[in-house]
């Protein structure tokens, strides 16, 4: 188990490094001049030159990359070219609301997705099953943006239960949690639908196995068969879809952030992209990559726990 964990961890490092390299060179392949994007179209040639040299944009690509990587190793992420704030400080200021949203939406996805999937598998072929399958199709196909606006209109205005915008008062966990409910439900709904569909099919597959038949023949109670024998075999597949859902959630979070006016990594990255703010963009992308990689690392560690066959 320890060897497995170490092996997985060792894979994390090249993954993140690969991501850093990719991000660096892809950003530089974007059309548009960062200096003009930052200083505007009336900037003097001298000011543009000076900004380019302060950002090392006038150096060869490889030299820029060298400075970037060595800076990163020593914890120096540079300053956002646009705001002149240290890039990592700006990223860290939006990481908490972003992570809170991502994890809350995964929680919503699991809490709704797994029971719905199990119920739908157990009731296979009945009206309930068809209803739930239809609901999951709706859940997958509703655009997040639209769903977000509808949710705001209904649950922040018609029935004023939650705030329409913002991430809550800083320093107040209660207020932040309160402001998190609607965005988490909206962002989690798509994931819930995926998880429900996958749970349903995994459960159906397992339920047709011989050992379930044997368990039934031995008179074991139906709920024990479902949750102890069947669920356990279905979990690895469900777990892997949770990892994917997390990555998708973080990507979709930009839409939720815009609708609910929440600060977050998604909006930060978009803002940095529009203004070609490489330093900020690199710090933001790295944070994003690290969080996705770490979540998948944790999921990798969970596999052998839930599936004894993987421990060997």
């Amino acid at each position, binding site marked *: 188990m320890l060897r497995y964990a170490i092996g997985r961890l060792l894979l994390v490092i090249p993954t993140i490094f690969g991501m850093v390299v990719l991000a660096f060179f892809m950003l530089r392949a974007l059309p548009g001049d960062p200096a003009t994007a930052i200083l505007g179209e009336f*900037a003097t040639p001298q000011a543009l030159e000076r900004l380019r040299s302060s950002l090392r944009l006038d150096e060869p690509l490889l030299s820029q990359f060298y400075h970037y990587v060595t800076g990163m190793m020593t914890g120096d992420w540079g300053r956002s070219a646009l705001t002149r704030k240290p890039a990592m400080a700006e990223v860290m200021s939006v990481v908490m609301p972003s992570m809170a949203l991502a994890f809350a939406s995964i929680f919503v996805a699991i809490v709704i997705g797994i029971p719905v999937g199990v119920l739908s598998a157990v009731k296979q072929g009945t009206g309930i099953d068809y209803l739930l399958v239809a609901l999951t199709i709706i859940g997958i196909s509703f655009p997040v943006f639209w769903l977000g606006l509808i949710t705001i209109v209904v649950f922040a205005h018609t029935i004023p*239960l939650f705030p329409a915008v913002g991430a809550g008062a800083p320093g107040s966990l209660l207020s932040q949690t309160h402001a998190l*409910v609607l965005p988490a439900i909206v962002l989690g709904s798509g994931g819930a639908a995926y998880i429900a569909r996958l749970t349903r099919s995994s459960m159906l597959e397992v339920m047709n196995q011989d050992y379930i038949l044997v368990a039934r023949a031995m008179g074991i109670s139906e709920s024990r068969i479902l949750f102890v024998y069947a669920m356990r075999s279905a979990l690895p597949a469900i777990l892997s879809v949770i990892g994917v859902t997390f990555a998708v959630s973080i990507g979709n979070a930009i839409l939720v*952030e815009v609708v609910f006016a929440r600060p977050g990594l998604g909006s930060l990255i978009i803002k940095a992209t529009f203004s070609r703010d490489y330093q900020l963009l690199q710090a933001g992308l790295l944070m994003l990559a690290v969080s996705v990689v770490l979540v998948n690392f944790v999921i990798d560690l969970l596999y052998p726990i839930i599936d004894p066959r993987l421990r060997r």
Partner: protein
Amino acid sequence: MIRSTLLCRGLLRLKLPAAALALGAIVSLAPAIELARAYAEENDVLRIRIGSDVISFDPHRPSTIENTSVAVHVYDGLFGYDLTDMSIEPRLAESHSVSEDGLVYTIKLREGVMFHGGYGEMTAHDVKFSFERVMDPEAPSPWAKEFDGMTIDVEDDHTVVLTLARPNANFLHSLSSRNQALILSRKAIEEMGEDWITNPIGTGAYEFSAWRPGDRVVLAANDDYFRGRPAIDRLELVLIPEETSAEIALLNREIDVFFALQGPEIIERLEANAEINVSQRPALISCHLVLNTTVPPLDNVLVRRAMAHAVNRESLVENFFRGTKVLTSTPLTPEYVEYTDDVPQYPYDPDKARELLAEAGFADGFDFRYITVALSPYDQFPVVVSDDLSRVGIRVDLTVMERATYGAARASGTLPSATTCPSNSPNPDTLLRALVHSDGFPPGVNTARYAGADALLDAARAKQDPDKRSKLYHEAQRQIMADVPTIPLYADRLFTATHSGVEGVMTSAAFWVDAYGATVNR
């Protein structure tokens, strides 16, 4: 995982649909709404919606609506605009005199004006420092042209002498702008280095308190403000990009002021709401289809005139924008004192357009690349304009570019056309010089590469007599509209919705919001 398994089990046993469970969870959170209400009902706070994040607290950098809206509260200039009629009034200046040749401005500063945060009294040295900072060719300020090579001399701590390189009758405008004219604290910048940008120090009615990127800027009342302490203790500029969300936030009183709203449907809905006041004022921004006068066939004035006749601007304003914009006959908007309607007119007339095209030798039309930027509404209305153009036989290839790509492409000066809404200063010279004077050649926004009105614009700037100056601006507008380097599609209007009980929030025709005189009565 264990938790959700338990949930499943409970669910199966009770045979409850999942929806009921979710609903239960939501209802059990209902008391939390009290929290939101309490948060929204503080009396000493005014929350104003902004649509994009603030980029910089350095007012000398390129301005955005949001940057300026922060800057007007934190900083002050020697002069400023009275927002009711956009007339110029002294602020940090107490009085001024101009030499007869119009070149030397002697400005007496108000005494005892203190910078925020204990950075001492504002003096003539801060003025010199601030203006030289703008004029430094290496500085990141695009506004150096506004000061046009002037020299700054400190006579004593409270007197500064500005000597212009050539007469500029619009110079008081240049000293009133909310960009280059704002006065920074020399001491603060020298002590803090780069960090001052996120800890701005000014003399304004509000002190900078906090910036949470992606969320809001918080400002606190300046007890020592020289024009008197503002009534509201705290100002929050809240970022809400999506207008529908902002609308609900306003109705819920999560914000008090919905600044710069655009959506015609939202304007109509809020106007119908008794709890909301929607104010509007004509603005100083005009939006253009700029035609590159050096690229065939656009180098032919007949072709440009034909295109102006082909575009149904009345319909664009009335139907697409549902009357939320206004028509303008020149690059200036009717809001400028120097505006005139007495210029060559291009009413919608497709037959005339076809005739002109035929006369120019393009009876079968031509291929035209219409270039615009991926920002609402500039990625939408060009579709309508393209349709108009195609009706007279012009084959339009509409290209929508991502923001930074567009900026760089436009600055290259090689684009055949561009969608441009130039700077929003009450100074007519700023707008016209940027859009249709050779000073604005790319990397500026004169992508038309039009210089036909240079002489008139330079003469107008130098003329001290206001009436004669206005006449020269009229002449310049006639010349520009005869040559049509750009088709002025519409002039903007600024809409602001406030919750009832909020009084005194002022907006500028140049698109910023000023809450200095605001009061809230909830």
